[in-house]
């Protein structure tokens, strides 16, 4: 029994190895072919861009407004009724500096808006998660990012006028809910600053200017 089995095993080997060699060669050829066709691709995701426009550009030598932080405000969603019965609360990510730094709905990067320009100026760009956005929160704060801001929130100079403010304001503007998903992947938020009269000092002028801010949400395709 054993010797018969071993003999059969030995007899089958020569034919098998011929087939094996052919198969191995084919395998190596296909592998090499595949190596040559290795490829990668990217497909953009959801995006929100925020721009600023000044309706009536100021005619000063320098007129800057500093935005330190921009945050997309997600819409409040109603809790399912069964959640209200649950003794367990919803767990949210810890709101520490780590989350702030990585939250895709927050951009912390000082930007100067030139109040002398009538063109749309980029303020922030987001790659947010899917969901509905209902507003934008803007933090105006003194900037040390650029020398021309002089470490101020608002800086106006020229035509015999020099005003500055170092106050910090958080302004939140709401708009009709915009859903970000694969069917609606892009959104532009246009901040619009209207003409405001000069105040007695920089603080008053800044307050008046920020009172005119409006936001328009435009879906992009």
């Amino acid at each position, binding site marked *: *029994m*054993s010797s*018969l*089995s*071993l003999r*059969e*095993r030995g007899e*089958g*080997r020569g034919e*098998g*190895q011929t*087939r*094996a060699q052919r*198969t*191995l060669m084919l*395998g190596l050829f296909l*592998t090499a072919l*595949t*190596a040559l*066709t*290795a*490829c*990668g*691709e*990217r*497909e*953009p*995701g*959801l*995006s929100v861009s925020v721009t600023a426009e000044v309706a009536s550009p100021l005619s000063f030598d320098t007129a800057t407004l500093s935005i330190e932080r921009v945050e997309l405000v997600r819409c409040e969603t109603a809790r399912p009724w069964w959640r209200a019965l649950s003794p367990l609360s919803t767990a949210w*990510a810890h709101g520490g500096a780590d*989350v702030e730094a*990585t*939250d*895709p*709905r927050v951009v912390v990067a000082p930007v100067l808006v030139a109040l002398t320009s009538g063109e749309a100026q980029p303020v922030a760009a987001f*790659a*947010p*998660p*899917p*969901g509905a956005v209902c507003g934008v929160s803007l933090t105006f704060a003194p900037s040390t990012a650029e020398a021309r801001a002089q470490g101020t929130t608002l800086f106006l100079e020229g035509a015999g006028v020099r005003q500055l403010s170092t106050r910090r304001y958080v302004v939140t503007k709401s708009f009709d809910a915009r859903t970000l*998903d*694969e069917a609606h*992947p892009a959104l532009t938020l246009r901040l619009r600053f209207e003409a405001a009269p000069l105040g007695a000092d920089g603080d008053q002028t800044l307050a008046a200017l920020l009172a005119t801010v409006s936001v328009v949400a435009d879906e992009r395709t």
Partner: protein
Amino acid sequence: MSRLLLLALVLSAGWSTACPTCTCANPALTTIGADQPFTGRLRLATTFRAWAQQDGRAEVDRAALRELRLDLTASWTPLERLTLILNVPLQVRERTDVSLAKERGFGPGEVDLTARVLLVGAQTFRPRHLISLLASARLPTAPTLHDATGSALSLDAQLGPGAFVPALGVSWTAFIGDRWSTFASLTGDVPVEGRYGLRIGPGVQLVGAAQFQPIRWLGLRAGVDARYEAVSFLRGVASPELAGLLTQALADVIVSPVSRLLISAGVRVPFVDTRPGPVSSTPIASLTILVDL
């Protein structure tokens, strides 16, 4: 995860009759790496595998990975005590970040070369135990993938870490009568630094499985596949998110419809996961077709 899959592949790529032409010696349907070697034995296997994983915080930095891979494996025994195993993966991988931006990569992954030295069980027609020493190396053969603009894809979207990974281990197969067999292996690997300055932490993997064959051509296998991995470093900075123990239950159905051919379908289901993450892995489905030549 990819290392886990590769090692799992070596250990479970396919089962076949120990003596494909006679089938009268050992009827156990055995894996590549656990099989009874004899001089000149050559086995080829193709394994399809699908898996997915999510890591990161929801709505903050969560990324989802999913992959389909085709592993081509050849096992050749030039000497009775020595078996050489070559594994070449072809992969399609997609990474989706929190903003639904996607990166896709396609191509060959990282080749594994394994030498199995049989310590116990050679020169026996029907050994009850096979004990082997395993020495393997994964080679950084996966090319760095770029998008259409020439920008390299992220690390997670690449088809491997691009690292040389030497590994050593031992395996034990026991045949208990005609219907039962068991397999166990313990392997350790120490990757060197790879692509983008990533040095994956050293790992230890333990696989144990028992197989029952109610019918000569049908095997049912169940067991555990566990891997512990130390902390990885990315450009010298510790990345502990994926360090820890991941244990998966494994279940396979093995069918040998004709001599020399074997088909295996199985699943790996995570059930103990101590990795801090946050990370979650889906069950891994696999299908193997193995031919004895």
